[in-house]
């Protein structure tokens, strides 16, 4: 949502909403390119860098008006990107690989989460600290994520037959109620929820045990890469700058998320904790050296390897660094 310049009509027309003003003066609204960024979930500090980019005018200055489209349980990222409703979507390498195997013309043009946020959460009395601890335990997860568990077991030489999978919906209740011993979840959501509710938990990040899948990846279609490069570069430049601001002050990003989306039901304490927990997933020695969102041949090769285990074979060509190179170059 860009801020229109102060025109006389807007100034005088106290009764006109800004939307009405934009309708009356469509030419003015077109001064900036309107594009959409499809987020992968409901608004939260998970996308804090994007909110900072908007607030600090990084897109506006580049002539881009970016609307941030929230996701949801029935709002997959891939369809709006394929349909062109969104220029860029926030996906993850495994989802993108699956979509590409189904014929979607995607490229990954940036990686927000260098380390995959998938984790095994358990309770301290009965902790899972290493993949070997999973044997003999009941794990709650969506059955759709079975390949993730299989890959983890295969990488670490654990017999998956020794683990009992219980299909659960995605919340921490089955763990605290004792229906399961551990949960497959993101390190940045359910464990945060439990801590805020006063339930202590142990998390084991899959990324620390050989599971290399880029997450919160930026995807765009091949067509956009060919024909809308300027917009892609402008959008990604704003993202990079926004996330740099985020790194400097995650708490401010949490506060901004709560303030920017008063109807999203966000809780400041939860947002702050989540903001803090995702920092080590997003920023690494690699991003320190090369910049936010970067990936190398080595990290891509590790991803290709894990994706093969997940049954989603892809070629390294899925990753396209040309946009980032322009942004950082």
């Amino acid at each position, binding site marked *: 949502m860009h801020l229109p310049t102060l025109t006389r009509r807007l100034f005088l027309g106290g009764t006109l909403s800004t939307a009405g003003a934009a309708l009356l003066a469509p030419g003015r609204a077109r001064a900036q390119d309107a594009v959409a960024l499809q987020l992968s979930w409901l608004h939260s500090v998970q996308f804090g860098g994007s909110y900072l980019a908007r607030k600090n005018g990084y897109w506006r200055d580049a002539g881009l008006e970016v609307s941030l489209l929230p996701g949801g349980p029935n709002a997959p990222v891939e369809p709006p990107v394929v349909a062109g409703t969104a220029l860029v979507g926030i996906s993850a390498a495994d989802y993108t690989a699956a979509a590409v195997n189904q014929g979607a013309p995607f490229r990954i043009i940036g990686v927000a989460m260098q380390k995959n946020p998938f984790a095994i959460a358990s309770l301290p009395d009965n902790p899972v600290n290493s993949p070997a601890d999973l044997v003999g335990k009941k794990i709650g997860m969506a059955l759709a994520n079975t390949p993730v568990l299989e890959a983890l077991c295969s990488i670490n030489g654990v017999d998956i037959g020794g683990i009992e999978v219980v299909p659960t*919906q995605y919340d921490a209740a089955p763990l605290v109620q004792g229906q399961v011993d551990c949960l497959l979840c993101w390190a940045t959501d359910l464990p945060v929820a439990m801590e805020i509710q006063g339930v202590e938990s142990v998390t084991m990040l899959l990324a620390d045990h050989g599971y290399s899948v880029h997450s919160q990846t930026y995807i765009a279609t091949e067509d956009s890469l060919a024909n809308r490069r300027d917009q892609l570069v402008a959008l990604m430049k704003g993202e990079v700058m926004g996330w740099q601001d985020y790194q400097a002050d995650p708490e401010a990003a949490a506060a901004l998320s709560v303030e920017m989306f008063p109807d999203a039901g966000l809780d400041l304490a939860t947002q702050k904790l989540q903001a803090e927990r995702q920092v080590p997933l997003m920023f690494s020695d690699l991003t320190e050296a090369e910049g936010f969102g970067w990936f190398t041949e080595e990290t891509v090769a590790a991803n290709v390897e894990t994706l093969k285990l997940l049954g989603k074979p892809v070629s390294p060509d899925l990753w396209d660094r040309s946009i980032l190179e322009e942004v950082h170059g």
Partner: protein
Amino acid sequence: MSAGRGTLRGGPAALRAQHPLPRGLGLLLVLLIWEGVARATAGSFIIAAPSQIAGYMVSHSGLLWRAFGATLASAVQGFVWGNLAGVLLALLVVLLPRGERLLSALALLVFCLPLVATGPILRVLYGPGTGPQVTLAALAVYYTTFLPVLVGLRAAPQGWFDLVRSYGRGRMTALREVRLPAALPYLVAGLQIAAPAAFLGAMVGEFTGAERGLGVLTVRALRALDLPATWAIAVIAAGVSMLAFAAVGALGRRLDLAPPEVLMAPPVARSRRPWEAPAQALLALAAALLIWKGSMEVFGLPRFFAKRPEDVWFYLVTGPGAEAQRARLFAALGETLALAGPGYLAGLGLGAGLALLLALAPRLGGAVIPLSIALRSIPIIATAPLIVWALGRGAAGTITVVAVMIFFPTLIACRHGLARTPRAVLDLFEVYASSPLRRLLGAQLPAMLPAFFASARMAIPAAILAVTTAEWLATGRGIGALMATVASTSDYGMLWSAIALVGLAAVLAHALVAALERAVLARTSAEQLAR
């Protein structure tokens, strides 16, 4: 007679018959027990206490109010559009009786489309905003209005049609003077069922990427393990649905609906040509395929996620791996049907049985009806954890979810059906001083049957929705889990194959119910079969 008739004419009288004092005390007792149980089980995050719920509502009143306003606006628009569509469809069927099977089949198929498929498509079509929420609310109600209204449009004595004809007037006059007045009570039943469904539809519609609303807050609260928030939203959803239900009922009473007549319809001549049924089935199939493909082409939906009929054919029959894909799909469907069937019968039996029981003991209505509305108006993703916790992830839990989802519409439709028992018939039973049970079986049950069969049809898609949701959230088996899995991995070929198969199963089940209906109604309510 007067007392008996008062209760027979519907639930509202039953509500009024309640003494205020015991009801208030009962409510207080329920709240106290609720509070006690919630506090005793606080550590396991299952039930929020009434005090916590009230506390959350007070401390987040602004947020809840705005979210409620957003969801209500979508629900009201969806309610209007959906009911309008349902009524128009029913009128169309009455004016073009030969098209009934075709239109019914198409209406059913559209109603069976699952959110995993419609969500992304609607979001792409509408972009940001409330379009998908309104559409999904409308889709949630049109079918349950279409069926009762269709029954009502036919619930008029043959003599009246003869009268219209003897004046040389045609179908339109019959429609205006005879059918529409006869359909009004049935419309009220449809609107009462639609009220909670529209609200739920709008909430679920927010799962497709909405900015605000109670559905958005539900998702957030569940993930945050925020029990007071989850329950506060559930209480609001249930409360607004009960209010809307009561308001529609009050409106129905204000219309002072004409007392039901004895419908003496002549027996239907069963002389259908043998080739007629298969021909109509083929026509319906062709029309469904045409609309499926045509609408996707018209809107230019990318093939990646909007698979055409030929893509499904390729996926299931001619393409590589078709055999394995077919096997996977049919195995999942088998698992699903094994649970949907018992749940369907249980919910239908429970709804009709409860309606009959309430006819005998109307006082129970004051407790049963609000509870039924509550169960029907809270998103299943919020109630499913409770059911899972109480009944486990096995067959019992799934069957219960299905039964819960369909027993409310059945109960309401059957109660309205019971209220349509002709007065003359009741007077006759009164004259002979028959027992209430005899009256129930001899007069009221036959009068209820058209409404019962309408709800048996309505319950087919409702059962499918319930079983697939339970499978997705709790058991991880069957076609519900399959659809959720393939949608998250962009396997839209499998998703649309599953949708096509589920639609086919629904149409077949519908045909089965319709055949049963014709056999029964030919004896009890021949007017429903007149062409």
